[in-house]
């Protein structure tokens, strides 16, 4: 490792993140100078800035040729990281759009700036290949997310969920960090590839390694809200401002999965003879999916319902990793594609919830009665989102689940595929119950039409199209996922 030579190419690789810092500074500046109604424009500026960073990334930072370790080995410039970064940028842009008309948030420049900081942290989580960089990136994301969750200082629920998120997150990430410190101590490396090499030599006892793997799994399990670290999820999702719920449940969870890929598949991989975590992961995947879906059946609040459904989705994604030993590339690409579909679908669902809550002032499922009469478009988009979450063809969620189950079956884990299939049926039930309330139940007397403002129209139409495109014309996107997965090995 040579720390003294930074070439221009190194900075070109992180150009989107450099652009994001400039956008954050611009938004902070606008926060000072803008007055009145035009303050809302900061949302557009954030969204456009994030999309601009994405196109600049595609133009200048697209990884060419073999993956390279840059900045003294702290980041790895490969296709997988690139795909995930693009996903975070899109998720951030959509989050900025669906924040614009939320009371108490839409005109706060500092909110958008912290949101951008969280996206920067996630981008570095996607490319970090060094324990130090990884920890720094994880905490950049987490600390921003704690602040965003507790952003509505006058709302008891927001502040309470922020504190809960903070306490749970800080404890689990500290346990993970203890695992990192032991990993460094036993191997003498902080670089993930150095660690893999040192572990491959086989000087570290198996029991110690499993202990370290469990400690790291505590931190990552919290980020992806896998059982048994899912207890914070419903509370935080319900109490947080809804755009932040959307952001945490999609982008932050996806970021957890890329860390899982980097740490477990590279550093603690089978090549170094330590795949002892696979049975553990198998059990966690099965239990997470089942718990998420079963508890979701009993929910009366739509945000809590989606919280438990997101726990179940984390379980499905974990199932792909379980098949990692026999077919590494397919399992990573299936997980990546599933996360793409999940981000688009879940953001759409939360955008609809925000629009409805603005009109009706409620997140209770029973208040959704007759929504199809109050706003047919909103109801149709909700149908698309919920059927995609349930995994009905031809929508995105179906293909995502299809690839996951295919990998699981190919690996010979039939029981896991059956658990997944039964869970998909249970999930279909509670999604359809909500759709029944929306379409069949009569609207309350004197319920007004629901108006959808411009930023929400843009966000929801874009998301609806992408949910349908991901489900029907999936080839280019799935090829991205495959290119990413093959660049990892």
């Amino acid at each position, binding site marked *: 490792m040579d720390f003294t030579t930074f070439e221009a190419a190194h900075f070109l690789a992180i150009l989107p993140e450099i652009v994001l810092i400039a956008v954050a500074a611009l938004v902070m500046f606008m926060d000072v100078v803008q007055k009145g109604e035009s303050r809302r424009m900061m949302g557009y500026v954030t969204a456009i800035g994030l999309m601009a960073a994405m196109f600049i990334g595609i133009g200048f930072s697209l990884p060419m040729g073999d993956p390279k370790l840059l900045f003294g080995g702290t980041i790895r410039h490969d296709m997988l990281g690139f795909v995930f970064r693009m996903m975070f940028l899109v998720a951030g842009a959509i989050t900025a759009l669906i924040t614009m008309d939320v009371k108490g948030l839409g005109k706060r420049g500092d909110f958008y700036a912290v949101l951008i900081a969280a996206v920067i942290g996630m981008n570095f989580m996607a490319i970090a290949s060094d324990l130090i960089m990884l*920890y720094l990136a994880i*905490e950049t994301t987490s600390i921003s997310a*704690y602040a965003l969750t507790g952003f509505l200082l006058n709302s*008891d629920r927001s*502040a*309470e969920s922020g504190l809960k998120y903070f306490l749970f997150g800080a404890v689990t990430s*500290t346990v993970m960090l*203890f695992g990192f410190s032991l990993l460094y101590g036993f191997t*003498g490396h902080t670089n993930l590839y150095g660690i893999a090499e040192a572990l491959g030599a086989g000087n570290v006892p198996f029991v110690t390694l499993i202990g370290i793997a469990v400690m790291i799994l505590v931190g990552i399990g919290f980020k992806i809200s896998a059982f048994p670290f899912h207890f914070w999820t*419903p509370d935080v999702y319900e109490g947080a401002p809804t755009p932040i719920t959307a952001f945490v449940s999609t982008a932050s969870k996806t970021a957890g999965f890329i860390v899982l890929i980097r740490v477990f598949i590279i550093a603690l991989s089978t090549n170094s003879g330590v795949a002892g975590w696979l049975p553990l992961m198998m059990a966690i995947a099965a239990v997470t999916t089942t718990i998420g879906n079963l508890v979701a059946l009993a929910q009366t609040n739509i945000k809590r319902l989606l919280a438990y459904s997101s726990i179940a989705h984390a379980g499905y994604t974990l199932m792909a990793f379980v098949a990692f030993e026999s077919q590494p590339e397919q399992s990573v690409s299936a997980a990546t594609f599933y996360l793409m579909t999940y981000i688009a679908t879940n953001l759409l669902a939360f955008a609809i919830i925000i629009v409805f809550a603005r009109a009706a002032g409620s997140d209770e499922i029973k208040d959704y009665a007759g929504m199809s009469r109050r706003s047919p478009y909103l109801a149709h988009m909700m149908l698309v989102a919920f059927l995609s979450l349930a995994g009905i063809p031809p929508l995105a969620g179906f293909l995502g689940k299809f690839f996951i189950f295919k990998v699981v079956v190919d690996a010979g884990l039939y029981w896991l595929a059956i658990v997944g299939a039964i869970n998909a049926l249970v999930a279909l039930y509670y999604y359809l119950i909500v759709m029944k309330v929306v379409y069949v139940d009569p609207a309350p007397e004197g319920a007004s039409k629901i108006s959808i403002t411009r930023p929400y129209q843009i966000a929801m139409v874009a998301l609806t199209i992408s949910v349908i495109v991901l489900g029907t014309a999936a080839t280019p996107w799935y090829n991205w996922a495959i290119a990413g997965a093959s660049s990892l090995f």
Partner: protein
Amino acid sequence: MIPLEWYLILSSVLFCVGLYGVLARRNAIAIMMCLELMMTSITINLVAFWRYGNVANLSGQVFAVIVFAVAAAEATVGLALAISIYRNRDTVVANDLNLLKW
């Protein structure tokens, strides 16, 4: 020189005391103090591993510096959240924060 094991025992004990405190205490401020204990144990770990390993490779030291910088940032946000709750509700005891329950 003191053997490496002693440092590791010290850091493990500190870590376990911190973890016990986090799980047993009900006051958010006390939980944060226990978190700091856990962070300290990690710093001891890292510096000890660096000193007894390859001294020429500074990554252990860099890691330790980053860890306490992050710990400070984390404590700042946590205390800010605790203060905002205290202003509204006059309590930071976890049992009283029960608006959100499953």
